[in-house]
């Protein structure tokens, strides 16, 4: 099998609201320049382009087609898109590289969540026959899952607040984070509920943003990057969309993806957990012990650009290989309601 590595990563600042359009061009142009410039590449060096975004988030049809303007697609390019987090676009690009069709790929995701009402937009990912017509909001659904875990003794509101406090503390070293600071779990617990048992700090913020990753194969990766983050396991699994049939206090698809990708022995993990209790759940599902550093960037609780946040987790994890601070890392992404679908990318540095 071909060796493939993450060689470049860039992301926009995570902000509550941008002035830009919902087609992402204003957010994408600067990060394309940053990631390609950093590698000494131009657009003609990229063999395949793949993106993740959502028309429901944008409120317009084919917003991902307008986004291609940010590339400057002339002469014509090879391009694809997933209506999912761009971590799944990364998976598609990885398969393309594995097949030997190309040696380089650029993957990007973008989302302007501030354009609409995110809690309602997220109802569009649910069963359209029996669930969406009730307009369940994303916070309300996550609240049910959080309470089930609390009542089963798997976590409590204090442990959830501690996750939020840790995220913001980690984010102090992340200049692109939306939320950061020293906060005390007791102070957080004194705040009112937004969807009992969830408080505001339990929920990822609403964020506009974009992220991009460059993949390269074999010698091309070694040529572009001093310490490529070699992908040693890349798997995604899905649970039934009928969440009333599942045990919501765990995530069989996360367990399976972690096992298949070889999560054992990672030093550091970036988890795509939009709610505090989901970070605890995922740590358990992926078997991450106390010795594993989780979300050193602050994770999505510190900034959650929809459709880019999962890709950014893989980028943040890869960055720790690039800068030599870690040897084996894990990036995780989720999609669908209540951790229905999970993707795990394990990366290693080599001397």
């Amino acid at each position, binding site marked *: 099998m071909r060796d493939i590595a993450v060689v470049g990563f860039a992301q926009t600042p995570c902000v509550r609201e941008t*002035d*830009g*359009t*919902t*087609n992402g*061009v*204003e957010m994408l*142009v600067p990060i*394309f320049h940053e990631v390609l410039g950093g590698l000494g590449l131009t*657009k003609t060096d990229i063999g395949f382009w793949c993106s993740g975004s959502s028309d*429901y988030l944008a*409120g*317009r049809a084919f917003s991902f087609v307008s986004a*291609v*303007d*940010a*590339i*400057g*697609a*002339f002469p014509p390019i090879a391009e694809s898109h997933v209506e999912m987090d761009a971590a799944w676009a990364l998976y598609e690009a990885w398969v393309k590289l594995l097949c030997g069709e190309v040696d380089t790929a650029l993957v990007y995701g973008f989302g302007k969540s*501030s*354009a*609409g*009402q995110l809690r*309602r*937009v997220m*109802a*569009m990912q649910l069963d*359209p*026959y*029996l*669930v969406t*017509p*009730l*307009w*369940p*909001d994303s*916070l*309300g*659904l*996550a*609240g*049910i*899952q*959080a*309470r*089930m875990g609390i*009542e089963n003794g798997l976590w409590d509101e204090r442990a959830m607040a501690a996750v939020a406090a840790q995220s913001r503390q980690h984010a102090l070293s992340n200049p692109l984070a939306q939320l950061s600071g020293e906060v005390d779990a007791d102070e957080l617990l004194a705040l009112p*509920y*937004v*969807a*009992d*048992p*969830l408080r505001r700090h339990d929920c990822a913020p609403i964020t506009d943003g974009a992220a991009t990753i460059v993949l390269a194969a074999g010698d091309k990766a070694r040529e572009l990057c001093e310490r490529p983050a070699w992908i040693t396991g890349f798997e995604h699994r899905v649970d*039934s969309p*009928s*969440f*009333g*049939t599942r045990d*919501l206090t765990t995530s069989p698809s996360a367990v399976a993806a972690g096992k298949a990708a070889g999560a054992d022995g990672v030093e550091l993990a970036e988890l795509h957990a939009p709610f505090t209790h989901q970070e605890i759940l995922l740590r358990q599902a992926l078997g991450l012990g106390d010795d594993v550093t989780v979300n050193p960037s602050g994770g999505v609780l510190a900034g959650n650009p929809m459709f880019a946040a999962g890709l950014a987790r893989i980028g943040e994890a890869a960055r720790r290989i690039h800068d030599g601070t870690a040897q084996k890392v894990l990036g995780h992404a989720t999609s669908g309601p209540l951790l229905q679908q999970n993707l795990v990318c394990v990366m290693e540095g080599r001397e």
Partner: protein
Amino acid sequence: MTRPLSAPLDVGFDYTRSLGPTLGRFLSDLRRRKVTGIRGSDGRVHVPPLEYDPVTAERLHEFVDVAATGVVRGWSWIPEPLEGQPLDRPFAWALIQLDGADTSLLHAVDAGSPEQMGTGARVRARWRGERVGAITDIECFELSDEPAEEPTEADDVTMVTTPVNLHYTHSASPTEDPFLRGLMEGRLIAQRCPSCEKVYFPPRPACPTDGVPTTDQVELADRGTITTFCVVNVPFLGQRIPPPYVSAYVLLDGADIPFLHLLLGVAPEDVRMGMRVEAVWKPREEWGPTMQNIDHFKPSGEPDAPFDSYSQHL
């Protein structure tokens, strides 16, 4: 810099879906104030019924009647309900295991306050008076030990209609903004790519050829050349002019991208590629940030443009 123009954008569509045998049975029965589950390959009764087994993926057939009463298995509290939700006062979302079912159904519980609500609480369906065969035929659940209202007769349903209404704030890009503000003053503002020097009208956030933001503003005159056109002969809903009429691509002088507009003042059989045209503006008091300020184009009377002058813009 001032913020680019923005405006509310409301998107709505009534999604109409056929139900098939499993969901059709479930929703037809809701119309009769009955709840029906389906037995899975492991013996569990799924409510709502699944078409395929979540473990083995086998097609499921065995319908099972369950009660319209049950137990709360998990819940959250919504202090400020959102548009479209079952109740417009504070309520609980709950996963409810109906009596006779092994899995849980998501619905709202009208519990009054979170203090009244609890895992393990007994609930019953509050049936809607006018039932159409939809999950919303259950208005919500209510805290009660009593049975729900008795079943009644109703015809089967085969379709369900779900209205979806979403609300956005649509922002113009930094390059569209001067274009739209220019239109309000009767000016046509294009943008030039600093790399390939192509002039875009309407402007785009980045040059699609080079991927760089366009930075130079260019003001164009309101006349140009027809690059290509079509004669509209087919009537359609919302048509403003009786056919036949001509839709034409107009390349403004100095621009590199033509745009579609209406051509009047000439018989369709006399329209030609290369024909020179000029804008006919609406009265000034009707102007807004829109290309509709130009009511239509009409022939300017100039000699036709040579093919070479627009052959690269087709």
